[in-house]
């Protein structure tokens, strides 16, 4: 258990640095798509939501909470990616 926590922290810190490097290179023109795009990936909580919603065959309080989480996370993922795609389409068609 202790080992996996430490690995988790390694992953967290390294991803933070990698992310900061990548994000600093995004030009101001694309800051709105950056925000909506990173927003979309933050819907990755959907992974946990899927496990909670489907943890048992019978429906109980936890699976209903899981269902709500799946709905929220899916709105975030699908909406976030689609709206980002819509914006980037507008940037792409120039010249």
């Amino acid at each position: 258990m202790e080992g996996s926590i430490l690995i988790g922290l390694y992953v967290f810190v390294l991803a933070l640095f990698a992310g900061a490097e990548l994000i600093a290179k995004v030009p101001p023109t694309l800051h709105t798509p950056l925000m909506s795009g990173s927003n979309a990936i933050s819907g990755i909580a959907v992974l946990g939501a899927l496990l909670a919603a489907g943890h048992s065959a019978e429906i109980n309080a936890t699976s209903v909470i899981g269902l709500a989480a799946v709905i929220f996370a899916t709105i975030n993922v699908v909406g976030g990616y689609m709206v980002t795609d819509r914006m980037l389409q507008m940037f792409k068609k120039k010249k």
Partner: protein
Amino acid sequence: MASANFINSIYLVSAILFMLGLKNLSSPATAKRGNTLSMVGMALAIIATLMTAGLSFKLIIIGIAIGAIIGGVSALKVEMTSMPEMVALFNGCGGAASALVALSEFQLKGVEFGADMVAHIGSFSMTTLLLSVIVGALTFTGSVIAYAKLQGIVSSKPITYPGQQVVNAAILIGIAVLSYMVFADPTNTTFFYIVLGLSLVLGVLAVIPIGGADMPVVISLLNSYSGVAVSMTGFALNNNALIIVGSLVGASGIFLTKIMCDAMNRSLANVLFGAFGAVSEKTGEAATSATGSVKGYDIEDIVTVLENASSLIIVPGYGMAAAQAQHIVRELADHLDGEGIEVRYAIHPVAGRMPGHMNVLLAEADVPYDQLFAMEDINDDFPETDVVLVIGANDVVNPAAKTNPGSPIFGMPVLNVEEAKTVIVLKRSMNPGFAGIENELFLKDNTMMLFGDAKKSLHALVTQLKR
């Protein structure tokens, strides 16, 4: 069914795709591909998770269907001017999802281990589980309030009352104390729900005292919070995919928050808590130093100036977008470009209602992105520019930010438009801007004011020019 190792390997592939997606956002030419890569990463992660042994698909299918319809329809329907509201709501959904996942995890572990829960999952996991509930919940309600403020459902003015900070501090302490009690006895779920409830309240109370003009900062910050919440959920579930994504999103949110704060020359603390102090104490002396008179001109005068110019910089503000004038602006620019006049756009970081918002609004109107220039890239070019056309912008071109220490916006980086040979300002009336400050630019000798609805004025200009 797939083994945990297999699923985790797929998560690694997803993480790589997310990183590549961000990398491709470094240029408008590759950005769309980046978004697609990121989507593929997400799809892979979801498919891999669905391969977990013993999963029941009934509720999962219902949930995905409902979420996909709501998210998809809103993404297709939203106006580009309303992008900040949309992002705020999506953000709130992310926060809510994190909090709910943590809640369900708490219930599952409670059933499994009862009073020995902390001993089994470890105090670190328990802490991150509580943090993901707290941060997720306040991201949810905070985002909803930010949405309501941008929509005008809740007053965009700062809402303050005596003792506000004390109340917020008390709630924060309450959350900490009750979280500790959950630690001591995880079977007492009431305390857990009170922590959740207080966090929801805190999200509301933290955002209502912040003014509408500062919403770009708030949205960026909430974006970062939603990342933090996901990371914490990742720690609680021991899921590296969530940890990685959470830190990417957290980093991006903080980065954008800093850019927005710098662009307004304010500290984050000042934005978040500024309304608690006396904000307007300086307005009396701020309006003094300006001398001269406002000179209104006709369309014909403006046309003459534009026809004799060889270089033009357009400075758009949110007023332009609010008047839906971006398409006619582009038409004007295209015409002048055809006449051999160099046309560029100067974009102040806070020209829109969220980071990069103005660029999106102009891109929607088919303005080529290579004509869009960030403030620091174009600010030295104004002295060599014949004409500057200011459309619906005010505070971001106010020279008082450089010259008048008494002005509330003193020190904020602004566009040096007054250095150009001629400045044309399209403005509805002489009312002060969003921040409620007088603008001495309007009184300068080289400034020509054209009053009226921006869209109508521009239409008239284009018609005259084409004659």
